Each structure stands twice: as structure tokens, then as C-alpha cells.
């Protein structure tokens, strides 16, 4: 009968709903910088940086400094942040030169690890 059919449909819908929402639940929200570091890390430890703008889901302008195993938030309006950014740019230029020369001399994959090792020694 119609009533049994609709009951079965309803039950199936509810079960699939529960299944859907419990099984596939690992929602990740984008992480944002919400406040700024007060201490400046030394430039020699920096691996790079990225810029957080307020044009997306984050609401605070920030410079995210990449350190080995860490990310630090810095105030883009601070002088030391701008200096660190410049420092990274400088290092990048030097790195590129070294990297390309290393590449030319040794073509195997080991050179890349060597290149990465060099990065820390600068």
C-alpha cells in the first residue's frame, strides 16, 4: 500500500541523511591569522612568506612567515615585517643562483636535497 511505501521512503531518507552527515564529517575551516606576533624571528630562519588579505575569508591583513615547522603571523604595517619580506626576497635571488648552478653540475635527484640543506646554512 501507499502508506507503507511512503513510510519506507521516509525511513530510507532519514537513514541516508544520518549516514551522510556522520560518515563524511571532517570539515576543515580555513585557518587565518587573527593577531600579530610581537617578537620578530631572525631572518636566517625564514623559509618564505605568504600574504593574507581581507579579500577572502580572512578578516585581517597579515604576512604569514614560514619557518621550519612553524607559521608566524606578522603585522604588514610594521617595519620589521617589511624588512623580513625584503630579506626573503634577497635570499630567494641568491638561492636561485645557487640552485641553478647545482642543477647544472649534478643532474640526479640528490642535488635537490643538497640544495635544501644549503638553505639552512645561509
Amino acid at each position: 500500500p501507499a502508506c507503507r511505501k511512503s513510510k519506507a521512503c521516509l525511513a530510507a531518507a532519514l537513514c541516508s541523511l544520518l549516514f551522510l552527515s556522520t560518515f563524511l564529517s571532517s570539515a576543515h575551516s580555513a585557518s587565518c591569522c587573527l593577531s600579530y606576533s610581537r617578537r620578530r624571528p631572525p631572518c636566517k630562519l625564514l623559509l618564505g612568506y605568504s600574504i593574507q588579505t581581507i579579500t577572502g575569508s580572512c578578516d585581517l591583513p597579515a604576512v604569514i612567515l614560514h619557518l621550519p615547522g612553524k607559521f608566524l603571523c606578522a603585522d604588514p604595517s610594521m617595519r620589521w615585517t617589511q624588512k623580513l619580506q625584503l630579506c626573503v626576497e634577497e635570499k630567494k635571488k641568491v638561492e636561485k643562483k645557487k640552485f641553478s648552478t647545482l642543477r647544472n653540475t649534478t643532474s640526479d635527484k640528490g642535488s635537490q636535497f643538497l640544495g635544501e640543506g644549503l638553505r639552512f646554512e645561509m
Partner: protein
Amino acid sequence: MIKKMDYLEEDLAGNFTFDYEEPCVYSLNSSMDRKVLPFVHSIICALGLVGNSLVIITYALYKRAKSMTDLYLLNVAIADLLFVLSLPLIIYNEITSWSMGWLSCKLLRGSYSVNLYSGMLLLGCISIDRYLAIVQARRSFRLRSLSYSRLICALIWVFAVLVSIPTFYFYQRYEPFENSTFFLPNEEENEPDDHHYVCDFKHDDRNLAPYFKVMIPSIQLGVGFFLPLLIMIFCYTSIIVTLMKAKNFQRHKAVRVVLAVVVVFVICHLPYNISLLYHTINMFDVVKCQVADTLKVTQNALQAVAYLHCCLNPVLYAFVGVKFRNHFRRIFRDLFCLSKKYMTQRRFSRVTSDMYMSSIRRSVEGSGDSNLSFTM
């Protein structure tokens, strides 16, 4: 090299932890997102699906929408049903990093917004309708005609779409740190196989973005909460004042229903909207990660309470009415009869019982106050 690393680790983990700020990962909020909210949302979804589809089925099969109130109740049920249906799709997409594509991002966020606005505005319209029926009873005949109410419902849906245009426009599916990353080492090794998308606000003009960012929740607060709240407060207070003057047993029940409608609305929506207001006001302020995490958890919990309202609407508005309940009982009776008929193929008894029931119904309808849709 090792020495330097040690220095860093010590420095970062030791005495100066509070001087270094890392990007906030909202650990408490994400664990709640994973463990609690899926259950809460599926319960809300299930209740909303059952309640609102029962209202729609009742209107579709047994009760042609005759009055203005009927039409509003039907439209509220449709808006709530669509809202509840978009909820699991949004959750599914948030989990699978918007695997259904950019259009689903825009459509789901947009339809969520349209249904939110139309639902809330229709609740305001129901209060106006009841105000006209009770307080302005003499003048209400023309204003409460069916053709007039069809026009109002259409206007509300159009208005809800118009108000949702910013959401349609500004919400995009994108990768949060797509082009801002500026790694020093081997740039060519950026493996793009791990795409992580979000469906969130995005506008590339850095000067205008903050205004649009504030605009969307502001419209939601104004049109989606405070406007219907003010209309409801005005209408229902004048209704209660009018009802208190009339000494009638049934009217006191009506007052109770009115109070229940307002109190439930306020309990469900006020806390969430206050947290939304707080978030909007302090949107661009510097805040500690722990505080922001707690605020986000609070806001999400209050949002679930607000969502719960669309499951309560069928009870508060439709099933409270005597007429509606009778129609609803008829559904179950007919379903029962249908299954009985299947087993015992006796048509005659069904026809007589049907006639008997409809005559009872007519007498019930005739005795009630036809203007009051919410008499208990």
C-alpha cells in the same frame, strides 16, 4: 645548522610562546564541527523534512489554500523545506571541499539565503494578516483576499531573491592560499594535486571588500531578523491588547498561542543574531585565537538553535489550528482506510464513513471562528 634549529625550537616553544602568533586553526570549533553538529543538523533536517512536508501534503491533497493565512502557511512550509533540503548539501560540500563545483557553491549559498529571507518575511506577513483579521476586522475583507495574498507572496519571493543577490555574487569557490604562497625552496615542486576549496566571500578589490563583507551580514540582520521581529512585536501586541478586551474563553487560548509564537521566535533567533551582530561589529579587529575559537563555537551552536525554528514552524503555525489538525487527521484516517480497503474489498463501508467524516468536519469548521487560524 643544528644549533640554530635548537635555538628556534627553544625560542618558539619556551619562554616567548605568547609573543609569537600562529594562524588560528579553531581546534575546538573544528572538533565540534566533526562530532556534534552533524548529529544536530541531521536531527533538524529530519524533523524539518517531516513537519514541513506534512504541511505541504495536507494542503496539496486535502485542503486547497482558501484564505490568505493558508497561502502564507503553505509558503512558509515550502521555504522551510527548501532551507532544510539545502542544509545537508551544504554540509556535504563543506566536507568534500566543494566537490560539486563552483555553481553548487553559488546556488546553495544563494538558495539558503533566499529561503532564510522569504521564511522570515512570511512569518512577519502572517502576523500582519492576523493583525488585519483581529484588530482591523472591519477593513480586512478586501485586504485579505486570495488574489491579493498571491501577489504579496510573489513579491516576498522576488524581494528575497533581490536581497540575496550580494550572496549570489560575492560567494565563490576558491582555494584559500592559491597565489599568495611565496615559498623560497623549489617552486616548481608545488604539487597541485591537493586542492582544498572553500565556498566563501571573495572580492578582489581590497578597498571595497570590507564594505561588502559587512554588507551581507548586515542585510541578514536587518531584513532577516529585525524587520520581521519589529513587525511581529507590533502586530502581536495589538492583537493581544484586542483579545484581552474581549472576554471569551477561546480568546485566552489564542493569546497563549500568540505568545508561544513570539517567544519561540525570539528564543530561536535572538541569540544567534546577537552573536552575528557582535561578529559583524568586531569583524576586522585583532583577536586571540582562543577567544575567536570560543566565539565561533558559540555562534555555530546558536545557529543550530536558529535552524531548529524551521522545524517548529509547522507545529506553531499549522498544527495549532483546529481546521488544519482536522485535515491532517483525515490524511491518516484515509491512509488507514486505504490499507484496510486493500485487505477487505468492501467499497460501501468506505463511502459511508467518508461521508460521515466530511459531515463532522463541516460542523467543526462551521462552529469555529473562521478568522482565527490559530485557535486551539
